[in-house]
């Protein structure tokens, strides 16, 4: 079987564990085998605490294959993440990963629109990293082939300090200038949205920004767009509607309560449409990335 031995169990040392506003944490783990194989959209299944009988799935925000680390961003939402938040640098956590079907970039669609909501932002950072690396590997003298835009929305404070963007996006309102610092460093345009009145952010839904941007593209540019989204279910549904309205392909990353995370228990399924009719597919190994049309139509 081609999938054999594609997921690793690693006793990963915590390299850093940074508390951010809104009970959010950035966790960096030394997990070289996972880091070497991780792709944007993949996740890890973590032992948070010896007293909890189940692991917790967390998406990967960044990976450095050379240095052998992975970085996760999570918000405290229950018993598992609450206990995870108490773990200190130097301690070890059992990591099962990397798991799942990742996002797929298509050369025919070099204008990826990345939309992240809340704790759905991390996979979008990872996808932006992959795009940045693709652009970075370009031959000298060539123009950058990929033109991504990352839009992120959150109702809790962002887990980074937004920075006024130096990258102009003419089709978006000029007062919407808050951007993700890492994206600025990478030269990737990004903008933020929130209903909480955070400075420089769009006052509303992230998908409203997406609509403005899509509507301003000419036909040639629009044909180069593919949408990638991760976030709360209503946001993903809105992304799917947007994709349909503009006739663009859309990949969404889903989450569901999970037990085994390797395809054994069928505990994390979602209803999808397939050419052979309705089916229940596993978020862990059939996803977590799905074609939005199969999930939301």
């Amino acid at each position, binding site marked *: *079987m081609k*999938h*054999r*031995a*594609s*997921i*690793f*169990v690693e006793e990963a040392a915590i390299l850093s564990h940074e508390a951010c506003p809104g009970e959010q944490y950035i966790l960096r783990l030394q997990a070289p*085998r996972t880091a070497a194989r991780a792709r944007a959209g993949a996740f890890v299944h973590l*032992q948070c605490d010896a*007293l*909890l*009988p*189940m*692991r917790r799935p967390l998406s990967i925000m960044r990976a450095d294959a050379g240095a052998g680390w992975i970085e996760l961003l999570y918000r405290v939402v229950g*018993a*598992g993440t609450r206990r995870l938040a108490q773990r200190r640098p130097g301690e070890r956590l*059992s990591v*099962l990963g990397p798991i799942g079907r990742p996002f797929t970039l298509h050369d025919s669609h070099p204008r990826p629109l990345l939309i992240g909501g809340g704790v759905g932002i991390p996979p979008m950072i990872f996808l932006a990293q992959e795009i940045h690396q693709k652009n970075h590997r370009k031959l000298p003298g060539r123009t950058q082939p990929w033109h991504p835009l990352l839009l992120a929305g959150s109702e809790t404070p962002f887990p980074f300090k937004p920075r006024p963007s130096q990258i102009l996006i003419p089709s978006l309102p000029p007062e919407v200038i808050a951007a993700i610092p890492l994206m600025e460093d990478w030269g990737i345009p990004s903008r933020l949205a929130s209903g909480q009145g955070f400075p420089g952010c769009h006052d509303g839904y992230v998908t409203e920004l997406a609509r403005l941007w899509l509507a301003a593209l000419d036909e040639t540019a629009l044909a180069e767009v593919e949408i990638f989204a991760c976030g709360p279910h209503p946001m993903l549904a809105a992304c799917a509607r947007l994709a349909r309205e503009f006739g663009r392909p859309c990949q969404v990353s889903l989450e*569901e*309560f*999970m*037990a*085994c*995370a*390797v*395809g*054994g*228990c*069928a*505990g*994390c*399924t*979602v*209803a999808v449409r397939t050419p052979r009719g*309705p*089916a*229940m597919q596993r978020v862990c*190994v059939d996803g977590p990335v799905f074609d939005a049309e199969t999930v939301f139509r």
Partner: protein
Amino acid sequence: MTETRDGKAASDMLAVDFCGMDFATPLVLLSGCVGFGEEYTRVAGFSNRDVGAVCLKGTTLEPRLGNPPHRVCETPMGMLNAIGLQNPGVRHVVEEILPGLDFSETRFIANVSGSTVEEYAEVTRIFDDSPIDAIEINISCPNVKEGGVAFGNDPDMSARVVEVCRAATRKPLITKLSPNQTDIAENARRCIEAGTDAFAVINTLMGMAIDIESRTPVIGNNQGGLSGPAIKPVALLKVHQVYQVCRGHGIPIIGQGGVASAEDALEFLIAGASAVGVGTALFYDPLVCPRINEGIRAYLQRHGLSEVGQLTGTLVLND
């Protein structure tokens, strides 16, 4: 390879003859935890060779989509599940999945379910005409509206299901008993009369978890089956009770429910099990089986025993 005092190779110490099947170790991966036998091989270091047998996902005559989400949730030292027997139907399993399994790795056991007695018989008959090593009758699934535990809680119906399955196959027949019944020993007696070759004890306990904010059950099916360390004491008592019925008939038991360590497995063997099921523990530690094997082997050596079967039913009750 290390040898014991009577010269038996350490690897053979764990071998078990279960209804004529040669189990390499007493461990059995439980139905519903490992899909159709290949899923866990995704994990580097995992091998089906580390267990005596693998029970495949519960299978019905026609495909089933299963229950709506959420299908699983954590509870104190355990978890609830209500998958609802999602499976592609027995014909697909026999024609498309079994040919892909490597039968040199371990013994593969089908798990048969149905909403009528006739369906149990038909699914069993189709598996009988396949390379599957044995058939487990699931009369204890708590997560379907028809069949399942509704049959398993009624000794007459349990016996009736075993009888028709017995008539449909000559392969070893294992009856998976429910803990959700008044007298599991009486049910076991009836199933032995009806022709079962072995028992799996126990299936999950029925339970519920409630989201206090929405005041709704967490599980989409409202109720589910409880597994994990939380149910181990219940399972041990049930194995002990069923063993009292089985010992005179030479009927072996797969003891299961919350096994996560060698010590857990040893408790089940001492209580009367000939083999030990591992399920929920895999979710926490996919590589738990080789560790359990190693711990059992060390125990046998420490106690001067040459094979694991010598432990079965060695429980000494207090006066």
